[in-house]
Structures are given as structure tokens and as C-alpha cells.
């Protein structure tokens, strides 16, 4: 006869097996549908490019990776930095960073506003913030175009007010991409910020005021340190999709203001250079991974200090 301890242990093992079984379908999909294609991309990036797209299977080549940063002159074979790629990479990083900072600047007061409403009205505010989510990204991007184009709402309004004589050429500039990304990704910043502000004990703010901290000091010394997890989470959620944005720079940035996503699409499309496209994709993923690691380490460190 099995002892009670053996019984408990067997029960525990069964429980673990049951959980594995239950999560198996999801794990299988993640493995096959997510990791699989990534491995294919990794393999493609090390192959020679086909003449009309595709790759030459089995032909190992570092040309794809080489072309990410360098270019070979057509006539004299001199190697120079691929300025076009570097400027696109730089634009992607810069615009994503500015987008993250702008959504933080806009989202912080918004989240604070919602978190300080009476409990029953907060849900309504959160719902209002998420409404754009229920709309297709392409539609939202075209809506933004209607606002910022030369004959759009913004320019017409500014002209009617007499602020400007000529329409501001916003479309097809980095500004257009920035406006679009801030608008689209703002909810991704507001929601995690709100989630951590909702947990904020507002008596701590009173304690701060009581101990001679003015409004700015309370914000800097109490609120920001306490909602830091929300700031970190929101920044990750905005920065990562910004870096890989495709639709927004395509529609609002026109052909010449590309970001990494557009460059990748170009290589797989009319560029007919799949190994290069694959190599840039892996590069983008690596950038995202680095950003994530920095954040996670930062969060873990502050977590260890502050709980």
C-alpha cells in the first residue's frame, strides 16, 4: 500500500502532466508557427539570392548580411557603408524613441487623470482610450492622413485662424510618421500606465505633501518611482511595434521616408533580394531583443530595490 507521501507525490506528478497536455496545442503552435518561420528566415539570410527573388537553396553566401551595412561599387568593387540602410535604421530608431517619449508625455497625465476619477467612471475612460483599437490600423492611418494633408483639417483650421498662409507640408515627412505612430500607439502607453497608477496608494501622495514636497517633488520623488513598472511596460509596448512599423510610414511617409519595415518589404518585393530582407529582419529582431533585455534588467534591478 502506498504511503500518504507517495500518494501526494504521484498526484503532483499527474497534475504536472495534465498541465503539459493542456498547454501542448498552444506550445505546438508557438513552436511550429513562430519559431519555425524565424529559423527559415535565419537560413535564408545565409543563402545566395535568386535571380527573380527567392534564394538559391544550399548555396551558402554572406552577401545578405554584408549588404545590411555595406555596399560594393558596381564598377570598381570598392566597399562603402550602405548610407541608405544606415539612414533608414537611424530614422527607425530615432522615430521610435521620439514616439515612445511623446506617448509617455501624453499618456502619463491621461493615465493619471483616469486613475483619479471615481471608480465607476474609470472604466468608461479606459473604454474611450481603447476605442481606436477596434478600428483597422489602415483606416486609422488614412484618417490621420485626412488630418495632416495639405488640404486636411489641421492645415485648413490653421489657415482659417490666420496662423499660416501656406499649408504646412506635413505629409510625406518624418513628422507625418511621428504623428501617425503617436496617435496609433498612445493607448499602448496609457493602459499599462493606468494599470500601475490604479494601484498607487494616493495616501502616499498626501504623505509627500505633508512632508513639504511640492507638486513637482511629489511627482518626481513619489509618483514616478512608484509607477515605474507601468512606464517601463508602456515604453516596451510602444517602442517595439514602432521600430517595426510598416503601414504608417508607408501611408504617411510616402516612398522616400522608409523605416525598417518598409526596407524589409522592399527587399522581398521589387528589390528581389530575399537574403538581405531576411538579414534585416533578423537585425530588427536583435534590436528589439536588446531593447527588451535592457528594460527587463532595469525592471529586475529596480524590483529588487523597491519591491
Amino acid at each position, binding site marked *: 500500500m502506498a504511503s500518504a507521501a507517495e500518494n501526494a507525490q504521484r498526484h503532483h506528478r499527474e497534475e504536472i502532466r495534465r498541465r503539459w497536455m493542456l498547454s501542448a496545442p498552444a506550445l505546438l503552435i508557438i513552436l511550429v508557427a513562430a519559431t519555425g518561420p524565424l529559423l527559415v528566415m535565419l537560413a535564408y539570410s545565409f543563402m545566395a539570392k535568386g535571380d527573380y527573388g527567392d534564394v538559391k537553396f544550399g548555396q551558402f553566401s554572406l552577401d545578405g548580411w554584408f549588404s545590411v551595412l555595406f555596399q560594393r561599387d558596381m564598377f570598381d568593387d570598392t566597399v562603402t557603408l550602405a548610407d541608405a540602410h544606415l539612414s533608414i535604421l537611424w530614422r527607425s530608431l530615432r522615430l521610435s524613441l521620439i514616439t515612445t517619449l511623446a506617448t509617455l508625455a501624453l499618456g502619463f497625465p491621461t493615465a493619471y487623470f483616469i486613475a483619479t476619477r471615481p471608480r465607476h467612471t474609470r472604466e468608461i475612460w479606459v473604454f474611450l482610450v481603447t476605442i481606436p483599437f477596434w478600428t483597422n490600423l489602415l483606416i486609422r492611418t488614412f484618417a490621420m492622413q485626412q488630418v495632416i494633408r495639405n488640404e486636411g483639417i489641421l492645415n485648413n483650421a490653421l489657415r482659417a485662424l490666420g496662423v499660416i498662409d501656406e499649408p504646412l507640408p506635413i505629409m510625406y515627412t518624418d513628422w507625418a510618421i511621428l504623428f501617425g505612430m503617436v496617435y496609433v500607439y498612445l493607448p499602448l502607453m496609457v493602459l499599462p500606465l493606468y494599470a500601475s497608477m490604479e494601484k498607487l*496608494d494616493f*495616501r*502616499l501622495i*498626501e*504623505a*509627500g*505633501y*505633508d*512632508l*513639504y*514636497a*511640492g507638486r513637482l*517633488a511629489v511627482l518626481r*520623488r*513619489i509618483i514616478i*518611482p*512608484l509607477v515605474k513598472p507601468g512606464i517601463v511596460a508602456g515604453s516596451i509596448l510602444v517602442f517595439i511595434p514602432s521600430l517595426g512599423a510598416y503601414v504608417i510610414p508607408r501611408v504617411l511617409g510616402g516612398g522616400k521616408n522608409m523605416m525598417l519595415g518598409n526596407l524589409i518589404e522592399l527587399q522581398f518585393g521589387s528589390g528581389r533580394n530575399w537574403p538581405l530582407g531576411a538579414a534585416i529582419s533578423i537585425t530588427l529582431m536583435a534590436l528589439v531583443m536588446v531593447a527588451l533585455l535592457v528594460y527587463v534588467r532595469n525592471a529586475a534591478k529596480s524590483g529588487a*530595490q*523597491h*519591491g
Partner: protein
Amino acid sequence: MAAPDRPQDKRNAIEAKGIVKEFGQGASALRALDNVSISIRENEFFTLLGPSGCGKTTLLRMIAGFEYPTEGAILLHGEDIASLPPFRRPINTVFQSYALFPHLSVWDNIAFGLQMLGRPRAEIDARVATMLKLVRMEELAKRRTDQISGGQAQRVALARALAPSPKVLLLDEPLSALDYKLRKEMQIELKRMQHETGITFVFVTHDQEEALTMSDRIAVMSKGRVLQVGSPWDIYDKPADRFVADFIGETNFLAASVIGFSEGLVRVRLSSGAEIAATLAEGARPGGDVTVVVRPEHARAVKEGGHLSGTVENVVYFGTDTHIHIRIPGGETFTVRQQNARAQSCGFAIGDAVGIDIAADAAQVLRD
């Protein structure tokens, strides 16, 4: 009525004048404070005592600056501070939940106020060290606030509020989260700290025993009004009205009628026909039918005679003393508390006929 009062010429630290506080507007407005006026003297341990919802915390928050009065003025050393934000008032608070900053260490919590005041680093270091010593937390200075016990958190909250040397320290039910034994210890500790620092303490509690043991003076509040202000002795022995008498300690209410006055006392006739002398609460109308109160320990159960008579309804043994519940004609119950001087029973059993002897000057005529 020689209450052991402090000299009247002492300066007032806090004066509240005709404070009205309404939450909401129009007909649905809730009146949390209704024409409250109190004076809190310098270096005094002053307690606001009342049941929850009586407005005591609202009044405290108003002194701190978290609420603004609808009407009236709040004076600190004679200057109106009602419009100053909390961070411009030299007043600190120990919050009910302590509200320690979870992202800062014990040391940083205590230093926070001094840092915000822009004090030099050396002064902050010295002051925090003094405070840690005062609350006996030197060893735990580097701890995070979630790594210390409730009693320790309480001490840190106290040290944090005392560190900037406020003119007035406000304490919002700071002991309510502690268990009984720790609460007793902290009561003594608080008194010691008030004595050592010489700071005016304004203490809010709903615990009448806590109020009686710690305070120099107590303001009893109910439904947004101050019913009585006085020393613990005043409040307990000379309650002004039925609420105060009922809220603080156990008491017996007796119907009586006034029959005359002599030497500041009033002679009343009890329902039994017996006549006793009673003190008169401030503002009590000295005529007609009145209510008098007698504390259970100011009466004795006697075999014969006494001012009242009845039958023993219950005898409850409490260790140090025994409560004898006596039903008196008219249907009311009168409780007598007798000390158990020797290891013997009180000598009364349920159903016994018994007399009640009320000590001289023990009865008080109430205001209402």
C-alpha cells in the same frame, strides 16, 4: 469643579474658529463639521474622540491642509493657515495606515521631509540619527519598509513626522492597526515622545480608553459637533450630556427632578423619592425634570437602606471587580461595580433585594 487644568495663559498652538465643512453641494450636501470651535494649547496632548463618522478625521485633515473649510478659520499660533497647502504648513501627520514610502528605506523615509525642506546634508544625517534613536530603530535604518513589522512601521511613521520638528504633530488613529499589547506599549511610548520633544500632539481616536490614558485634554465629537472639551477627569466624571456619558465608560442614567440649589450643587429627587446632591453640567438647564448620571464604581450595593432599591438581576465576575446589575422600579437597570478586595463573593445573588448607595457628589445633572 477643580479640574486639574493647565494654566490659561498658555499660548494656543491651534485654534479652529467656527469651522463648517460640507461635502457636496446644495440640498444633498453632507455637513461633516458643524460650527466647530476648539483651541489646542502649546505642548498639549490633545485628543479628538468620537465614533467613526463624527468628523474628527475631517477636522484633523483640515489642520493638516488636506481639506479646506467651507466656513471658518484655522489659526496656527494666531495666523490663519486655512488657505495654505499642506506642504507650506509646519505641521506633520502620522497617518492611520502609516503611508510609508515603499520605494524608500527606513532612513530615506525619515529623511524625506528634511530633504524637501532643503536642509544641509550633515544636518539631515544628524537629525535622522537622532530620530532613529528616539524611536529605537537604529539597527533597521537600511531596511525596506516592507521588511519591518507593524509596530516598527508605526515607529518609522512617527520618526518621519517628527524629523522636521513640526510645530504640531497630527496622529490619525495611529495605533488602531496594532494588537492590544503593542498598542499599550505604544501609548506609553507616544507619551514619552511627546514629553521629550515638547511638540503639540493632536491625536484622533475612537478608543475612549486610549483617549483617557494619553490625553491632557479631550474633545468629544459626535455628528460633526464638539460636545465637550476637557481633561480626561472632566470628561469621565463630569460628562456634559447623554452622548458623552454613554460613549465614555459605562454609566447609569436616572430620571430625577430638581428641587433646589445649594453651594453650586443642585438637589434632585430620584424616582425612589430619595434626595441627593448633584453637580451641574455646563449649560444644563437647572429646573424641572432632568437626567442624572452615576458611574457604576461610584455606587455601592448595600443590604439595607441606600438611595435606590431593586432586585439583583445578574452578577458578573471580572477578576478585579464584580458588576452587579440591579433592576430598579421603573424598569431600568442600574449597574454597580465593586472591587473584589478579598477572595470572597460580593455577597449578593440573583433575585436578592438590594439597596443602592450613591457616593456623595458622584451624580451629575446632564445638559439635555
